[in-house]
């Protein structure tokens, strides 16, 4: 794969050990701007670890992570998020006691939420209502904005989490198994949503176990195995590659 389009994210020889286990071992890959990239690999290949490294939740032992040309490998998570990296989680992470609306509002970093502005703004006055309505309409969630997150079904929580990520001012969206545990209808919906986002010029990196989903959606697929990149190519080539099959099923 050639670097014909500028990479928005690049991992350079990233290693991460947990005790004696090498979760990532000199792993290098890059993501091109404006594309949907699938990140696949057998269980324990290091996919989620890679996500946690990219978002700064874990720190690299060695190597570099470049995002928009900046080295973010030592940057705290919240700053990485602020420069334009949004993500969702394998296990949905919503603020369970907050309403849908408030969940989405947390994703907007506005000056009114600073501590010293406590006495000038209230939570009730929401100047981002329109943006939130749009995001919820985009993911197709027809639930009242005031619904408390813990009252939602699993599929609905996934959609809210996605909508929340979309509220951010992001240039790269990381999705960790967006289809895990959702029914086929929601899965199809997700597919068309991600295509729409791509059309809007967004860059998406997703971890996915559902091969149909990832192969039909991705422009490029990166295969991880035992913490390193096995290959990166167009989906049809990846599907035919012997090494990939071996990584999943053994020789």
């Amino acid at each position, binding site marked *: 794969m050639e670097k014909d389009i500028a990479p928005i994210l690049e991992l350079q020889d990233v290693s991460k050990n947990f005790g004696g286990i090498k979760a990532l071992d000199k792993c290098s890959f890059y993501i091109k701007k404006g594309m949907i990239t699938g990140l696949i690999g057998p269980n324990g290949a290091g996919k989620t670890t890679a996500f946690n490294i990219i978002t700064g*939740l874990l720190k690299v032992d060695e190597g570099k992570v470049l995002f928009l040309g900046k080295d973010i490998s030592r940057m705290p998570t919240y700053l990485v998020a602020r420069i334009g990296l949004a993500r969702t989680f394998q296990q949905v992470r919503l603020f369970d*006691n907050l309403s849908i609306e408030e969940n989405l509002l*947390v994703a907007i970093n506005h000056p009114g*939420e600073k501590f010293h502005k406590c006495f000038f703004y209230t939570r009730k006055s929401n100047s981002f209502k329109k943006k939130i309505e749009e995001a919820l309409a985009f993911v197709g969630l027809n639930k009242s904005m005031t619904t408390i997150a813990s009252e939602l079904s699993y599929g609905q929580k996934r959609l809210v989490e996605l909508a*929340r990520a979309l509220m951010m001012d992001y240039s790269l969206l990381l999705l960790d198994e967006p289809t895990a545990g959702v029914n086929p209808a929601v899965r199809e919906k997700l597919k068309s949503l991600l295509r729409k986002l791509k059309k809007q010029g967004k860059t998406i990196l997703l971890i996915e176990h559902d091969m149909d989903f990832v192969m039909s959606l991705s422009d490029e697929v990166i295969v991880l195995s035992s913490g390193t990149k096995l290959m990166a190519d167009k989906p049809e080539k990846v599907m035919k590659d012997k090494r990939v099959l071996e990584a999943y099923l053994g020789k």
Partner: protein
Amino acid sequence: MFEAYLIHLAILICIYAVLAISLDLAMGYTGLMNMGHVAFFGIGAYTSALLNMAGVPFIVSMLAGALLAGIFGFILSWPTSRLRGDYLALATLGFSFIIESFMKNWTSLTRGPLGIPGIPRPNIFGLVISSQLSYMIFSLIVMVVCFFIITRIEKSPFGRLLEAVRDDEVAAKTLGENVRHIKSMGLLVSAFFAGIAGSLYAHYISFIDPTTFSILEVILLFSIIIVGGLGSSKGALIGTIIILLIPEPLRFIGFPSSIVGPARQIIYALLLLLIIYFKPKGLFGRVKLGEN
């Protein structure tokens, strides 16, 4: 006589309400299992009493006590920023032991276990709050102001961040929120108001010693906010009233004091069991204890 007793109860309720509401800001809103709240109470009490007795005006002493407590809260939040739940509870409990040990052993300043007697009543710009009734009005005003400020913080956009941190720190981080700073500010404000309560207490009782700020007080405070419900200032206020009033009738039944003390503990324990069994979120709570 009976009137004086009622006023005494009302003053105690005001003081403990400030303590409970501020503890709820840390525990109910920010999700910090803070067992060191009495230490902030103590810092506020000692600082305010010592400064005032050294000639500093009351209002300045009170605010200095609160500010020092707040600073300690802010500092405590650094080493404990990675801890949650039980671990944080233990660390903050350890902090309260450290403060207690300072109170006991820094005798040149605190007179150690002898305590500090003769703390004067507040003198606000020449107005001395000496009578019981005026002290009740004074503490009621302070309590209402504290209640207003804390609920205002909880209902501000910053309050939403506190709750987001409570519900899921990792998610809050990945949404661009500086979780560490948010927790520090939460603990600072919580400790500040505990310091205010400490000052109110010291200048009312006029005597403080290290035992006033012991672990027993922590249990009382926890009972209050568990009964009232986490994440609700109103709950903390009503919890205070309930917990402080419920054992009072025991005094009039005519039991000897050797029974009244333990009976009070039995009542608290029963109340806690009933609440946890039938209403795990407390009377007005929005968050279940230990949910995160």
